[in-house]
């Protein structure tokens, strides 16, 4: 309100329209910058954790009977005798150029980046497939449950969600394999088809693993969506919209769903890490040659560079997706971006 004129309703300085776009760009820039810092700190933590793990890479490669001279030569060759921080900086410098070093024990001497080149798309496809399935299922269940609150439909939809949350992904994988794979024979139970070669085939072959990953998340998403929809329905602007005589469907889409979308997306962003956790387990069960299997092998065979490369890649994906959902939420919520 203006100081000079108490009686008026008040004038206020209005934000210039052209500055809104600039501010949004700055906001996105800031978010990307903080994501980068987070990634750096995260990679250091991962690096130190893996270094601190018991066991020696040299022994696992050369065998328990290796002579101390052979171990020392191995460690010198791979730079493992340097101080940890020097090792980290050297690794970081290479990693920024896309060079994650060579594999020690899985595929001895091969470039990790070229090994990952075939595995990363596989995992990204599986993860994205699972995410799309989870969102689709949760949209159907969540909206249905919210619109039929307290009726049989709500109870059924909510029960399905509880079931989804309480089933571990590895167990669900075996149930799906047994039921849809072996008994009904609708889907293959093992192996992988590249989506770049045969998209329908890839969707068909990937359905069970994607569903196994998606189910627990779909349950969380749909319960979240139901809760935020119900909460939004009680907002005064919804009653106000109805009092203007706007059509119920219009009110649902533009007043209820539009406002519920922001908390729903936030939850999705936070849950992305579970997709990657699921990928690690499910790729193993279904024999899919992706990052998950690669990482598990790296851990078992103490192939530290592989383990490191996989973990940091996963970290990067999580940070990136979180940054994107965060930016999307700011974009959708005028109170945050303008």
């Amino acid at each position, binding site marked *: *309100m203006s*100081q000079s004129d*108490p*009686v*008026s*309703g*008040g*004038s*206020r300085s*209005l*934000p210039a*329209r052209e500055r809104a776009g600039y501010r949004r760009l700055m906001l996105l820039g800031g978010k990307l910058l903080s994501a980068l810092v987070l990634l750096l700190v995260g990679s250091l933590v991962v690096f130190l954790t893996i270094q601190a793990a018991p066991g020696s890479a040299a022994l696992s490669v050369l065998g328990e009977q290796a002579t101390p001279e052979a171990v020392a030569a191995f460690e010198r060759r791979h730079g493992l005798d340097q101080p940890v921080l020097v090792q980290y900086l050297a690794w970081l410098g290479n990693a920024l150029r896309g060079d994650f070093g060579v594999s020690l024990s899985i595929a001895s001497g091969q470039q990790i980046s070229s090994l990952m080149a075939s595995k990363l798309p596989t995992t990204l496809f599986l993860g994205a497939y699972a995410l799309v399935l989870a969102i689709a299922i949760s949209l159907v269940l969540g909206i249905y449950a919210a619109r039929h609150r307290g009726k049989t439909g709500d109870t059924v939809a909510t029960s399905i969600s509880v079931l989804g949350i309480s089933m571990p992904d590895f167990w669900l994988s075996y149930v799906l394999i047994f039921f849809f794979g072996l008994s009904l024979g609708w889907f293959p139970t093992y192996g992988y088809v590249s989506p770049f070669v045969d998209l329908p085939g890839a969707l068909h072959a990937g359905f069970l693993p994607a569903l196994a990953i998606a189910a627990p998340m779909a349950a969380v998403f749909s319960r979240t969506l139901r809760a935020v929809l119900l909460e939004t329905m009680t*907002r*005064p*602007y919804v*009653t*106000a*919209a*109805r*009092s*203007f*005589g*706007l*059509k*119920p469907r*219009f009110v649902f889409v*533009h*007043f209820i769903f*539009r*406002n519920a979308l922001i908390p729903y997306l936030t939850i999705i962003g936070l849950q992305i890490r579970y997709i990657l956790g699921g990928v690690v387990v499910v790729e193993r069960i279904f024999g899919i040659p992706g990052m998950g299997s690669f990482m598990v092998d790296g851990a078992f065979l103490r192939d530290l560079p592989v383990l490191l490369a996989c973990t940091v890649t996963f970290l990067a994906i999580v940070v990136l997706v979180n940054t994107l959902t965060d930016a999307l939420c700011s974009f*959708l*919520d*005028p*109170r945050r971006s*303008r």
Partner: protein
Amino acid sequence: MGDLVDLKQLRVSFGKGEGRTEVLKGVDVTLSRGEILGIIGESGSGKTMTGLALLRLLPQTATVTAERMDFEGSDLQSMPDRDFDELRGVSMAMVFQDPVGSFNPCKTIGWHFEHALRRTGRTEGFRDETVRLLNEVGVRRADETVSLYPHQLSGGMLQRALIALVASLQPRLIVADEPTTNLDKIIEKQVLDLFLDMRRKLDASVIFVTHDMPVAASFCHRIAVMNAGEMVEIGPTEQVFRSPRHPYTRRLIDTALELAGVKGRPKASAAHRALLEARADEPPLYKVRDLSITFRGPGKRGLFRAIDGVSFDVMPGEILGILGESGSGKTTLGRTLLRLYDPAEGSITYRGRDITHLPERRLRGFRREMQMIFQDPGGSFNPRKTIGGSLREALVAADVPASQIPGRITALLERVELQALHAERYAHEMSGGQLQRVAIARAIALNPKVIVADEAVSKLDVSVRAGVLNLLTDIQTEMGLSMIFITHDLDVARHVCDRIAVMYHGKLLEIGPTEDVFTNPATDYTRSLLAAHHNLADLIGA
């Protein structure tokens, strides 16, 4: 009579079977074209329900029945939902209490208007029409406002926009549910004028739901009085206010008149005068000089001055009113006297001692002498503790020996006109008025020298407000306390205060004896505040 709305025996209940509660118990309402009907009553009386039921906006858990429910001669009860959607907005519309909550926070003001205007069959020129409508209700810079989001506008502006939005639908009936309750007095008057304007232009009828009797008396043709789900009285405004038939109406009006200062003030009581005279020679309790408080502005660079160079004294035994509208800094000022905030500039002297920058640990002794009573009675009690438990806490803090505590709790409760059995209750089991009494008991448990009462009766219904107010002033006189009484309510301020300080935008505009400020205000702001005020006594000539 009743060619627009004819409601007979409207009943609304929630729940089924055993748990069924009836919130409207047979309400009759009739309304003619161009008429303004006020529905007054206290919270929970069902006045909002009546409006919502008429527009079929109640939640699905509600059951609505009526013997007759006609709008412009057509039966609303048998109307299918689809037809009702067509009726809503363009035939009957509602203006809600909370203008900020009535807008979709994700959409611009212009978007709301576009979709409202589409309802009236318009297919183009939305922006120009919106600007025209906004200009009509006095929204300045309407052209820019169209592309703003609700959170970028003040409550008063949004209420204007909401009224313009409803006007764009050109309804024949407007149900206004406490449309001015959240607004400051000066803006309230402007908004009421907008309603009169709209009624004249659209030849619309208005159902005006309010708990503010002066507003109802000045604004409505007829008045309906509701109590506990029943309509106890309905009639022309003059008749209802001058010669109420129902005892409940009479009680409501009497309390409102008492607050408006017709039936004598407790501050004029002999005891209070004696107290003031006896202590007139004592030095001031508080001396505040050039006090400023700054806060970091939300999202803004630089500092926001909530209090800006304020000086005044608080005398022993007096009730000093701090009058101002929301955002004027009156609450901040009250809290600063308890040193809950650190002053940026100036000084506060309490009983001759400079406490401006006294460190927290040395403030504890002082804080016992200064107690605060808050606006929201429910929020200031620990929900997991009984009332007795909360009072015990205060008594332990006052170093009362453990053996005496139960007796003191009973004595305190009885002093605030409650009973010993209330000690067993939890906060949610008590009414707002009872809780505010307990808050008073808790404040006096520590034998304070000063009480800061921050809008202590604002959330209470009229009928309990006077009781709590009288209790507060009685205790003040009896214990010889000073009281800082923070309020936005002119009637209440005039009712209890010896002196009034008027705050506006962090500045103290004027300070003086209550009657001087009210009869001969020194500033334009105070004058416009008084002009916007509806005095019930004057309105009904009592």
